[in-house]
């Protein structure tokens, strides 16, 4: 899921592709023994109570996101992320800002 989402993101920044990519990353870092059915996965699913990410797993996942998208998620932003959709919205904002910055530089 993460790989397909990331591949699609190479061509354009579409919210649904970004959400697929982020969901795949979050699933990759779930703590041991956590089982999630695909039907449960949606943008408003809570990362902690719904998906089962603990604080360390969330930090690991966001480290991967930072590396993958060459961005920086501040501590204050990390604590404000509650759902997959919230994470997607935050990252989309960062990617759009970065893209706008590149265009104005050009």
């Amino acid at each position, binding site marked *: 899921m993460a790989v397909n989402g990331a591949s699609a993101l190479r061509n354009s920044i579409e919210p649904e592709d970004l959400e697929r990519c982020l969901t795949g990353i979050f699933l990759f870092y779930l*703590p*041991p023994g956590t089982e999630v059915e695909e039907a449960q996965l949606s943008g408003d699913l809570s990362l902690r109570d719904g998906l089962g990410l603990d604080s*360390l797993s969330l930090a690991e996942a966001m480290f991967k996101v*930072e*590396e993958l998208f060459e961005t920086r998620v501040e501590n204050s932003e990390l604590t404000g992320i509650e759902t997959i959709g919230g994470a997607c919205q935050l990252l989309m904002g960062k990617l759009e800002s970065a893209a706008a910055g590149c265009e104005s530089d050009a």
Partner: protein
Amino acid sequence: MHKVVITGIGFVSCIGIGKEEVASSLRNLRHGFKRIQLAGDEVGPELVCGSIDGFEFNSCEARDWIFPGSAEIDHGILRSMPPHGIYALVALEEALQQAGLDRSSLGDGRTGLFCASAGSARLLHHHLSRISASNWMRASPMCVVRSIAGTLNFNLAAHYGITGASCGFVSACASSSHALGYAFDEIALGRQQRMLVAAAEDGDAECLLPFLGMRALSSNLDPDSASRPFDQDRDGFVGSPGGTAIVLESADSASKRGAVPLARMLGWGQATDGQNVAAPHPEGAGIRAAMERCLASCGIDALDVGWINAHATSTPAGDRAEALAIRALGYARPEAETLISSTKGLTGHGLSFAGALEAAVSVLCLQQGIVPGNAALDQPDPACEGLRLPTSTVDRNPQLILNNSSGFGGSNVTHLLGLC
């Protein structure tokens, strides 16, 4: 003081995984060395090193690791582990099984865990490189707990649900001997009923190659003679990865649950050279004092010891110092029947896990009724004059064993182990 017994031992070593393989190697003086380019094909120097089949940690990503039982272990447990954590985990599972204990019985507050490792230099290098590449803006949350000294006790205490004492020990090559000594104290003083001691090292390029700078590694490329403790032609140690685990218990606790004691730990002693950051005292003053203090605390006469499981790593200075210290205790006298040997001629040097490995080997030898010979010993160093240095394994139960360890900073530890 409570009597302390050992009810379980476990091994992941270059001479065997598990007691049976290790016992066979000790009996037949079969070493576990190979000629390896540690840093990768066509990179770095070729060396003789200990090699463990079935464990592959080529990637820094734990999901890629291969080891016995890897398919059954959840990634969530592995994600914070260094490679040597796996060695310790496998060894500890063997020791717990032998002791008749499972994870559910370890969180009672009466069971503690002492560990020894130098951390994972490789993972620290890996993570710091990634942090540096991000201009020090991003760090993996696992960087610290996977790599610093202490990673072993962090991981194992969490995995086994330990609620009693837990601690890591750092005194270089005496680390796990300190862990075992203080674990003995916890039980003898009645603070804990049971102690798990686990020790391990990555034993990879990042762990071993820095010793090249000290000229401490053997440059002999013949696996059959590179590690030759007490030999006059020895030229350095052979490094080895692996892990060991030991379960100690109060004799009362073991008896109540019907566990069979394998051996008794009678006591231990320690002393420091107090003169050099790395080199041993030229006459082994510290290791001599450690042996004397150990024997005095146990009320045992030096010549009643059947075997001294020497630290001797095959370095010129270290082996000479220890031999002189052993002679100073009277072991070269004609009436002395004590055998002296170093199993590092077979296992190489496990660095911080060496002391626990040799304590577990000592327990195994008490069980098997053997004293391992000095593998690859051809011409003894003149400093060993008068000492009984067997060159083949002797079928004799040593009854009482002194187990020596020495580490940087001149730290020295000796344990006394015996039959129950």
